[in-house]
């Protein structure tokens, strides 16, 4: 696909002007995932801290957490099969030149730490087939292929402890499974803050948010 051509359904006034960066399935997945994770964090807080929060009963929190958990798992598969069957999978391809990757990684980190405030040009040229800078790529690969599946798996085990008792025993017991799930929860809490803030580091605070709604890259200059 020509990266500057908008597919069907794209707003007409934006055709041939901006890069179509985030296809519709990705945007749907992203916002459902964001809402789902926020809800899971909220109900997770309620489950873990009944003595501190009283947003809903424990029983309600369990049922909501379970249902939303399944929805988020289903949503992950939507994301997974979309990328598996589309040419956008290149966004998650690892850079086999490790030295080059980390050079670009640190250049990006330097940009976030200094260049962004000095008006320097962004070191990563965003393309639909390579839209993540090295820092994003490392983070998202780690999140989507390691931490998110671990969270799903540990959550599934706790959803029905008897059904998954063999797997739980293999993992070292329900306490181990829960500890892993909570560690993931803690990481996602931190991720939410950082991710929401990084989303504001465009030309304007709203730029990347708009991109994630319309699918088109907003003008950066």
């Amino acid at each position, binding site marked *: 696909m020509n990266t500057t051509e908008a597919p069907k359904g794209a707003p007409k006034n934006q055709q041939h002007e901006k890069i179509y960066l985030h296809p519709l399935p990705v945007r749907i997945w992203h916002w459902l995932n964001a809402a789902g994770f926020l809800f899971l964090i909220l109900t997770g807080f309620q*489950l*873990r*801290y*009944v*003595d501190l929060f009283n947003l809903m*009963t*424990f*029983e309600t929190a*369990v*049922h909501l957490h*379970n249902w939303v958990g399944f929805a988020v798992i289903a949503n992950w598969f939507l994301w997974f099969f979309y990328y598996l069957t589309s040419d956008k999978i290149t966004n998650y391809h690892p850079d086999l030149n490790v030295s080059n990757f980390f050079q670009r990684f640190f250049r990006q980190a330097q940009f*976030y*730490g*200094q260049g*962004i*405030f*000095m008006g320097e040009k962004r070191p990563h040229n965003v393309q639909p087939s390579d839209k993540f800078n090295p820092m994003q790529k490392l983070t998202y690969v780690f999140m989507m292929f390691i931490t998110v599946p671990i969270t799903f798996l540990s959550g599934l085990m*706790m*959803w*029905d*402890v*008897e*059904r998954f008792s063999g797997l739980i*025993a293999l993992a*070292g*017991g*329900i*306490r*181990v499974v*829960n*500890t892993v799930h*909570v*560690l993931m*929860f*803690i*990481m996602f*809490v*931190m*991720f*939410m*803050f*950082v991710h929401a*803030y990084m989303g504001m580091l465009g030309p304007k605070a709203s730029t990347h948010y708009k991109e994630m709604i319309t699918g088109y890259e907003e003008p950066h200059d």
Partner: protein
Amino acid sequence: MKTGPILGSLLLAIALLGMAMAVSAAEDSEEVSSPDLKCLKCHSRNLKKTLEDGEKMSLRIEAVDFDKSVHRVIGCTGCHRDIAKAEKHPSREPIASRRAYSIKHNQTCSQCHEDHYADYKGSIHASLVEDGNENAPLCSDCHTSHKIQFRGAFEPVNGEPCSKCHADINEAYAQSVHGSARTEGNQLRGKFIKAPYCSDCHEAHEVLAVSTTDYLVPNCMSCHEVAKLAHEQWLPNAAMHMKSVGCAVCHAPEAELRVNLQLYDRVQQAPVRRSEDNVTLQNKLAEIDPDGNGLDPVELWKMMLKTDENGPSSDIILRGRLEVANGVDAHRLADHSEAIRSCESCHQANAEAFQNVTVSINRPDGRKESYKADSKVLNSPISVDSVGGFYAPGGTRIKWLDALLVLAIVGGLAVPVGHFALGKFLRRKK
């Protein structure tokens, strides 16, 4: 001689007359068989035998009671076969004690009641007898020796026979939803129910230590068939709850609770039983917990490292279970409308249910041998492995992870604040 039969008849008539007079309530005793009347000739009197322990044991048998006994049909020698076989009445034979005599005659019952006796031999009652427990029941302690009644005569609400030893439990049972229903003619909420009594849950003869019977949950389910389905409709992880939480925990709402961490062999799928060496759990743990104040998380971890004499065994785990702290409370079962339904009663920090923790091993006879543990073992990161099989979200959460969560929130806020401040600083410098 012709006088023989006449004299014999006369003597028999005199004997029968004497018997009729001797037995105070002889009106009902016409049906006692004649060989038994021979026994009663002496044993209806206030005979006493001095035992070796000094006790004077009464040898009197109440004819009325024996006449009403289900054993009337087999007569005295049906059980006292030694007397039937002996040429001489063994009245001079020494008897060590009343208990010793009862123990000697305990297996007499097996001659007819082979199955029941086999069940009894596998019971906790028989194990206690073998251990020399003077109060452990023998056949005659529950059934009596000479006024053995049919099964329907056992009515626990009236206290017999279990209450002779378990009076406090019987009292709790009598006030429970089961006991009340039974007292009121098996009526509950206007409907007929078959309210259980002791032997319905604990068996009559194969009375096992509760810790070896999956804590009687299957017994509860045998009557409350819909309970599984009913719990599954509202209780998350219903199967796990019904396995790890005793029925009485929620259905005896006033009961004191505890978490018992039972040593369990996950390969054998059975609780670990300590060997017959009489080394108690307390003795074994004295080295690990020298001050004897209960196992803290580190001590519990050390204990698990020593579970096997040859080194740590990955097959032995601690299986956690929330249960009522004593057997009396376990019988105070309330109507289901009074059962605890609030998840919050357990799933929050410092929940009362998790303040009392014990570690246990089963004795050779199946009874539980417990040792106190600090409630901190349920909240410590050190216990992640040793108490790996027990976790209640919220209630037994690891406090160390709470601190990590606070750090994550502070860190999550610090990134934007710090980055924003850095930007301000660099722009000003520029």
